[in-house]
């Protein structure tokens, strides 16, 4: 019972990371594609304003997930991190490069520095979600057995399902970012920018859909247990994700940006929860269940209670953060507030 609750909270944290920090990574993706210095400058400025105040808070969700995983399910944490240490090391380095380069770019004034840090920021924004996606694929396709470094350190992440996970993660992040940025641009009164990001949101949304459809075939061949779960128990969630994806595109085309934002988030969240639903109660396919891996009740209870108390402090603080930047003077920093909401 406590174990399931902890897992649910962990998964909720993962969802928050995907929806908030994922969009920050996606913003880096669009930064990469924004074009040469002059042409790309307004977009880069806008992206910087959007994610500047919030990306650090969004990043903390990752720490939240890691810590809950190791406190609540230590053997799973050890198995996943030891077997998949290559993509995870690369993702970790990507996280360093992204965060540091973003902060440095903001603080530097010369063009060559901004270019260098900007390139670092944008590239690592693409590579990090890709490698995190390959990790998800490795776990989901049952390539991480229980035990320390018990799986193959290469094929556990260099395989069809991992590749699908990586590509899907990059596209989903890009889509989320574009949808969120549409709304930010529209609220900032910049119609041209909003139209630009609307086009990108639609394109990335379509691309995600195509990859997801192709993914059905890949999973059928490569991850039979996951495929079975997705087509049976988790089917409703898969349908929700697909429907939300289509509805989101329609809303975008019709300029209903606020709703598009919520629906896009729903589509991505449903993918994560359908994976979780398909695999439950296995944490490591095929045989390590939640019950096997869970810590003692005393630990789970202490962590959950601490988190509950913590959230009593966090919720008003987060509200204050987003609210402070909602009340706006009409400055370009306007977009500031909830770029990652």
């Amino acid at each position, binding site marked *: 019972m406590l174990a399931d609750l902890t897992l649910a909270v962990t998964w909720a944290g993962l969802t928050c990371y995907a929806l908030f920090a994922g969009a920050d990574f996606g913003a880096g993706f669009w930064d990469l594609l924004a074009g040469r210095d002059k042409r790309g400058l307004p977009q880069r400025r806008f992206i910087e304003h959007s994610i500047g*105040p*919030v990306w650090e*808070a969004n*990043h*903390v969700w990752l*720490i*939240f997930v*890691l*810590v*809950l995983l*190791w*406190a*609540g399910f*230590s*053997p799973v*944490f*050890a*198995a996943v*991190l*030891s*077997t998949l*240490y290559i993509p*995870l*090391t690369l*993702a*970790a*380095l990507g*996280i*360093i*490069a992204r*965060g*540091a*380069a*973003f*902060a440095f770019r903001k*603080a*530097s*004034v010369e063009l060559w520095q901004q270019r260098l840090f900007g390139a670092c920021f944008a590239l690592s924004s693409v590579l990090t979600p890709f490698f995190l996606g390959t990790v998800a694929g490795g776990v989901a396709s049952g390539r991480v057995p229980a035990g*320390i*470094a018990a799986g193959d*350190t290469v094929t556990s992440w260099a395989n069809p399902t991992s590749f699908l996970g990586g590509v899907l993660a990059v596209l989903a992040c890009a889509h989320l970012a574009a949808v969120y940025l549409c709304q930010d641009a529209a609220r900032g009164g910049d119609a041209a920018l909003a139209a630009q990001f609307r086009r990108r949101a639609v394109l990335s949304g379509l691309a995600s859909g195509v990859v997801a459809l192709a993914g059905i075939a890949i999973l059928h061949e490569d991850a039979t247990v996951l495929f079975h779960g997705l087509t049976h128990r988790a089917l409703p969630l898969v349908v929700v994700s697909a429907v939300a994806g289509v509805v989101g595109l329609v809303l975008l085309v019709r300029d209903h940006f606020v709703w598009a934002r919520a629906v896009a988030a729903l589509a991505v969240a449903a993918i994560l929860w359908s994976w979780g639903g398909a695999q439950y109660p296995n944490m490591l396919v095929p045989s390590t269940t939640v019950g096997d891996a869970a*810590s*003692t009740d*005393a*630990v789970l209870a*202490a*962590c959950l209670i*601490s*988190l509950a108390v*913590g959230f009593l*402090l*966090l919720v008003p*603080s*987060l509200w*204050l*953060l987003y609210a*402070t*930047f909602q*009340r706006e003077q009409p400055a370009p*920093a306007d977009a500031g507030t909830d770029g990652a909401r």
Partner: protein
Amino acid sequence: MSQPASLLAAALLPPYAASGAVTPGDLSAARAQMGFSLAWHIVVACLGVGLPLLTLAAEWYGIRTGNPAHRLLARRWARAMGVLFAVGAVSGTILSFEMGLLWPGLMGKFGQVIGLPFALEGIAFFIEAIFLGIYLYAWDRLPPRMHLLTGVPIVVAGILSAFFVVCANAWMNQPRGYTLRGGRVVHVDPWAAMLNPASPPQSVHMVLAALMVASFLTASVYAVALLRGRRDTYHRTGFFIPFVLGAVVTPFQLVAGDWAARFLADFRPTKLAAIEGVFHTHSHVPLTVLGFADGDRLRYGLEIPDGLSLLVGYRPSTVIKGLDRVPREDWPTVTSVHLSFDVMVGLGCFLLLMGVWLLLAWWWGRRTGTAPLAVRGTRLFLLLAAVTGPAAVVALECGWCVTEFGRQPWVVWGVMRVRDAVNPAPGLMTGLWLVLFVYAAMTTAAVYVLRRMTRDTPVPVAPQESDVEGYPVA
């Protein structure tokens, strides 16, 4: 054994027979990677704990005096704080990855035992990040006093984060709050594990160290500027606020350090023995300053007769437990622990004397009616003050080396050896090179950006702040 050879041997602990692929090289690579990224993070983390306090002090002072120079100071520190926090957030995340990537043996078995302090740290860090966002970006959107208030949670949460993280490290020194049955953890009392006996002395020592490092490093920057003749309000205040804080904290740190050492005498005699190079259990133990371990004794050190016995038990006849109480394979490398400790204490004393000097100068200034820093010897004082920052950082790293090297060969003292915790997967050496490369690049960039920031980067200032006492702000 000679010094380099024994250090090398320490790095190349023999591989654990049961863990298949791990080679001695991979084990030392894992240790080096963890040590390197921690040594890097600890400096940034200390600045993350101390700099907000300094910034708030400057801002509060600015509001009180209405002097734009003070407000400008607060703004510049806040900008540095923003960059450092970002860097600290990511380098801290890497550490939580590395706990699993490099030490899955530790995490798989004991992850749940030390999970609680990390969960609490996560919350504290989250609050820090949120209020930092507000503090940095809402400077012009909130009334000054309100803005000052939004900085308070950053300070509190920063200190709490440090406390929680050190609790986890303290647990590795004093493992408590769990029961093992058949090699599996079966019962856990997470609060007892977190609040183990080593937590209070270690965390107090660490938080004070963080304040000292941030204070003296910041003061160093302005000491250099003062030496270059820029003795206006801006640079003087920039020097005095951090230096005074550092000077006030240092005596408390000496007390806290003494507490931590006494704690070792009671709870971890082996570590104290390694720190002081005591090989044989006996009374009338001298205090040896510096020196290298050679066989079963320290050589080339300065011996103060009965010193250690006096320090620990206030009597020359106090018996000090030596390393001979444990098997030789469980000894830490004495030379590295001992020298780290002596360097830390020596630098701590230097910092204490600098504080005393400032106090005397201030008292002399009051008596003679001259302003502080206008008396003779000021130039020497500033020269020395300029090295207090690097000195504090070296002392910090040495102190951390004492606790980490002093725990070897254990990762969890008396329970699990480092070689049993390491990831047996091949190729850890490659990971080390990658990490070193990325950190080198990040360090270069961080230092470059921060230096530019203190020099000539235009700082966005309100019009009334643009020309304060004739020094350039842009």
